[in-house]
């Protein structure tokens, strides 16, 4: 392969960036052609920073200041249909308003990328973090990456275009991260001195099928029962392919730039009796808590789901196979389900056909940014150990940290 160590050639600069700004820098370095976005907290500073780049001539792009998120995604995917590399960003109510177009983006196989600074949903209105918005987009055929640091946000947006635009994938990608907890906190981030290596890793392809008067195509047709199912099955196949492609993209990224993440992140899982499964910025807190508990001899580990869709079941199972108890912490609720954590359900379903499988406990926490500290994690682990001793794992989600509900 032609990927002989590029690492030395990349000059990096270290900047203090919020995850929102990290997105904007990635968009600039990827030479995105069209951005259409509508302001919503806590996404706004993504678009503000991109606007600055365009205003200063650092990014040669068209910014469409649309009148809603519905139009934001519509304009973004239409720009992609016309051949441009296109991007948008949103959160919460904005993602909900886009919902109809989420399906159209993937159905038309348009390789756009969107960042989501995840946020709780109305009502009551909350501008604070949880993952209800993202989890509502679960079944829309968008490849979904959930990052846990600002550096990973930058790197994931770069990887996202690489995966989306792969001719064997051609599906849109969401890069998500915690609203506020990550979108508005600053971390050191390495960004390249110039964007050449980024474009070498994720080159633009203007020769894909597009709205071109020289070669006219009809996009967005009507499909009868004779044909509709085949269109949808092709998305299923593309999603399957995307799993390999996401793996490859991350591996190649590591070869180019010396940073790789995998589809899941394991932390001290090999000898752990209890493994905490989580996603997003919470994993940083979990790692801290694991370090603290390990000092006291508690054999606990962590697993972070980085790629949410397509779900990397093999990696997840491999990381959890030795655990006695898996505790999945979800920051979203599937109302009316006994197991109400979307990721918990996914982990359970991955193990369903196996005779040997760990016990799995579903915890709901951090809803509307209800605080989760290292102490909270320790309390959850203490309680989980009690359940293990009692030998009875509840077959329903536990609502951790809500008034009036106590688990003893």
């Amino acid at each position: 392969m032609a990927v002989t160590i590029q690492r030395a050639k990349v000059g990096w600069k270290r900047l203090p960036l919020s995850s929102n700004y990290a997105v904007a820098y990635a968009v600039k370095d990827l030479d995105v052609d069209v951005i259409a976005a509508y302001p919503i907290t806590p996404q706004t500073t993504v678009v503000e920073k991109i606007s600055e780049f365009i205003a200063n001539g650092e990014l040669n792009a068209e910014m469409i200041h649309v009148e809603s998120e519905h139009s934001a995604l519509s304009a973004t995917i239409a720009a992609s249909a016309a051949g441009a590399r296109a991007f948008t960003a949103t959160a919460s109510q904005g993602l909900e308003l886009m919902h109809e177009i989420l399906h159209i983006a993937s159905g038309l196989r348009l390789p756009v990328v969107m960042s989501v600074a995840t946020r709780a949903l109305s009502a009551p209105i909350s501008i604070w973090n949880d993952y209800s918005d993202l989890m509502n987009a679960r079944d829309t055929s968008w490849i979904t990456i959930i990052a846990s640091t600002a550096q990973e946000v930058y790197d994931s947006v770069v990887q996202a275009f690489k995966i989306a635009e792969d001719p064997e994938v051609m599906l849109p990608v969401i890069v998500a991260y915690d609203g506020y907890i990550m979108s508005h906190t600053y971390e050191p981030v390495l960004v390249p001195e110039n964007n050449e290596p980024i474009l070498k890793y994720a080159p633009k392809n203007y020769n894909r099928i597009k709205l071109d008067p020289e070669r006219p195509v009809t996009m967005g047709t009507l499909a009868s029962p004779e044909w509709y199912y085949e269109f949808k099955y092709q998305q299923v196949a593309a999603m399957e392919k995307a799993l390999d492609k996401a793996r490859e993209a991350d591996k190649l990224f590591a070869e180019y730039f010396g940073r790789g993440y995998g589809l899941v992140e394991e932390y001290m899982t090999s000898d752990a009796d209890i493994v905490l499964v989580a996603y997003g910025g919470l994993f940083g807190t979990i790692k801290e808590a694991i370090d603290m508990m390990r000092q006291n001899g508690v054999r606990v580990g962590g697993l972070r789901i980085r790629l949410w869709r397509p779900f990397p079941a093999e990696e997840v199972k491999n990381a959890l196979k030795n655990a006695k108890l898996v505790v999945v912490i979800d920051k979203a609720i599937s109302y009316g389900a006994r197991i109400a954590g979307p990721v918990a359900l996914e982990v359970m379903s991955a193990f369903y056909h196996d005779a040997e499988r760990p016990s799995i406990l579903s915890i709901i926490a951090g809803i509307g940014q209800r605080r989760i500290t290292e102490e909270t994690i320790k309390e959850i682990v203490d309680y989980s150990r009690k359940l293990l001793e009692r030998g009875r794992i509840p077959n329903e989600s536990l609502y951790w940290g809500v008034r009036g509900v106590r688990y003893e």
Partner: protein
Amino acid sequence: MSKPVAKKAFRLLTQIPREELFAPGHGLCAGCTAGTIVRHLLKVAGKNTILVNATGCVEVSTSPYPYTSWKIPWLHLAFENASAAASGVEAAIKVLQRKGVIDPNKKINIIVLGGDGGTYDIGFQSLSGMLERGHNVMYVLYDNEAYMNTGIQRSGSTPQYAWTTTTPAGKVWRGERRPKKPIADIIAAHRIPYVATANPAYPLDMLNKFKRGLEVEGPSFVHVIQPCPTGWRFDPRYGIKVARLATETGMWINWELDHGEFDVTVPVARRKHVKHYLRMQGRFRHLTDEEIEEIQKWVDQEVERINKLVGRQVIGPVEE
């Protein structure tokens, strides 16, 4: 704004391009005048055109996979967002031309085609946004005055007293209860370079308006009346006749607002009574003579307003 000299390109039917970019075999109803409008629109626009279609009659009947009636690049996303989609296409072409990916000297027309539901109602927000942002897009509204694609439900465009399946004429209701929303006036209030109303019974006037809409810099809007045999309840052979009567009775006035200059492009020296238009259509079958006279009064008032705007009598009195 100074008004560039508008050249009337089409003075004779023989000047209409022979090239057909709208293929036959589509599924529009027999006698549907939308096909007539679209066919002529593409003749004016030519090959270097991208068309964005809102969900509606034309969209569903011209794109049943694996067939298409479109010999130009065509995009359909959804019902309410055609203008947002066109904004995205226009921005993409602009930046790709700037970057030399697309030949910057090549003029690519971008057109939105939407029905009245997709324009007056569900698509109005994205349309207003597109106009306000000044995208170089021509919006063509084919107006059949109800949601025909879903089976004749009223829209913001349905004229007062018209029967639809959701405004039936019964003991309490007399059909639609509200007057037609003046969409072209509302579009004109956006102060875009060019707004016009057109009628397929006057093809040269309609074609010249499409051409003008495409040549101005910035957004333009052409509102075309589109008689619907299925929803308006008339014999399919009479589509153009009904369309012509709309103008001959003054119920539909062909005007244009070009960089602030208003003119009526199809003067009518002597008007026909509205009953000639209304009595041809089953959707007005329940109307009493009094109700028809009431409609005549509204039309008289509108004609008076238009004549005042133009500053001379472009639409004459009722003669028969």
